[in-house]
């Protein structure tokens, strides 16, 4: 279980996220959606222990993230630059596990690459793989690590739409089989709804959790889901929430600026 209590992260004079309380149960697929600069990546990095909260507390199964890191219990997938160019796909998959101090299992790594649709590419180097294939390798690598928690930071952000949808179907499929806890950050609303059991809408500066939606869609989730009414409606709801929060924030900022102007006039 992931548990955040009153987490605030500040960089110099910018507050990225403020007073975030969040509980994620084992085996949940949670997506975090929001505009750029709302602190969603910071939230993910804080959960994974790459960012230390300024105040507040993060616990993964009751222990600080550093303990989860040491136990090879956090599988990160980043947006880009995630593979070592000088290693083959297979070596990339096994290497991280070795670095984590665990014995890699080549048979398992090959099997994972195959499930990710990379038959015949185990010995290819990243330069020969397309963007989508590289992200498949990165996902296989996180799975081979054996981590219970997968933390994904816009992993499909640089891919074309078709590859995105395809990988979305696959990652949901992997999750159904393995039941990992997944926290998936994206700025695409349809992606966030399609993948999630639970969708967190993050807004504002500093970022806060604006809404927490249970997503109800049929299983298995495949390309048919995209056309369904239930999907469209939930996408519309999340989108509305994002826009409303955005408008409210803007009005508040405008009001604050106007008050400031007025005060300045009075001082004069």
């Amino acid at each position, binding site marked *: 279980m992931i548990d955040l209590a009153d987490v605030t992260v500040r960089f110099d004079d910018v507050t990225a996220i403020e007073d975030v309380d969040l509980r994620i149960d084992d085996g949940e697929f949670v997506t975090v959606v929001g505009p750029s600069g709302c602190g969603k990546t910071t939230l993910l990095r804080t959960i994974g*222990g*790459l960012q230390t909260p300024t105040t507040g507390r993060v616990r993964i199964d009751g222990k600080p993230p550093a303990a989860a*890191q040491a136990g090879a219990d956090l599988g990160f997938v980043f947006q880009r630059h995630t593979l070592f160019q*000088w290693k083959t796909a297979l070596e990339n998959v096994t290497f991280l596990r070795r670095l984590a101090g665990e014995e890699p299992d080549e048979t398992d790594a090959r099997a994972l690459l195959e499930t990710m649709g990379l038959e015949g590419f185990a010995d290819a180097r990243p330069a020969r793989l397309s963007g989508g294939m590289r992200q498949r390798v990165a996902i296989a690598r996180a799975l081979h690590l054996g981590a219970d928690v997968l933390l994904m930071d816009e992993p499909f952000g640089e891919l074309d739409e078709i590859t995105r949808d395809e990988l979305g179907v696959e990652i949901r499929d992997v999750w159904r089989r393995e039941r990992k806890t997944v926290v998936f950050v994206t700025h695409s609303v349809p992606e966030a709804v399609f993948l999630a059991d639970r969708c967190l809408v993050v807004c504002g500066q500093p970022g806060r959790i604006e809404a927490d939606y249970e997503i109800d869609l049929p299983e298995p989730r495949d390309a048919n889901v995209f056309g369904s009414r239930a999907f469209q409606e939930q996408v519309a709801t999340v989108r509305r929430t994002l826009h409303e929060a955005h408008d409210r924030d803007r009005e508040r900022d405008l009001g604050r600026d106007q008050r400031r102007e007025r005060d300045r006039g009075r001082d004069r």
Partner: protein
Amino acid sequence: MTTRIRTLAGDVFFPTAALAVAALCWWAVAVVGDVPAFVLPAPGAVVARLVGNPTLYVHNAWYTLEKVLYGGSVGIAAGFLLAVLVAYLPWFRTAVYPYLVAVRVLPKLAVAPLLLIYLGTGTETAVVFVALITFFPLVLSTAAGLERAPSAHRDLLRSVDAGPLERIVYVDLPYALPDVFAGLKQSVTLAVVGAVVAEWVIADRGLGFLILMGSENVRPDVMLAALAVLLALGLSLYGTVVLVQRGVRRWLGLEATG
């Protein structure tokens, strides 16, 4: 097929032709123009000098190479070590880096006479001088290269609790390789310059010394022969670095570019 012929013409024919034309001009000025040999010896005379007494040039080339190898090794090792310190110790970087950049402007050749006072006229002066001159390009480019790795790789290593040594070896160093080799190429070139200047100053032996003697005795044929050997020496050293770089790239499975 056409590509191959064009490549052959471009890579081999034109440079060879240019060299032949240059030699011909030289020969024309020296022989046809009847310039005395103590001013400009003919190409043939220089070749004859080389072939006539090869041991002289081989021995002196070895003495120069010795200074390059010892001094270069010390300079490169020290430069690399300092670059690592600059890259990983913020306080050290703040303290030292501005001076490293500033001292780069200083012509290191001007320091040679000072070394003469401190270290005397032995080979060690030459070794220290070569070390000094090879040190700077390597330290600056390596320090910059060690910061080139994308932050996602560092994050990835941190996420599995990998230590700083693993980060240096598996992430930062591979990304720094192009800069390290760029620095090394500058360093070996300067090492030869350093060795020659050192030989002028301490005047013991080596190709630099041979050139100095040739000048004092008005023997341009000896000087030109020594220069030719020096050129070959410099090119071999540079070529060695290029080959090592290629080998490392192949070993790492990177395409042979850059």
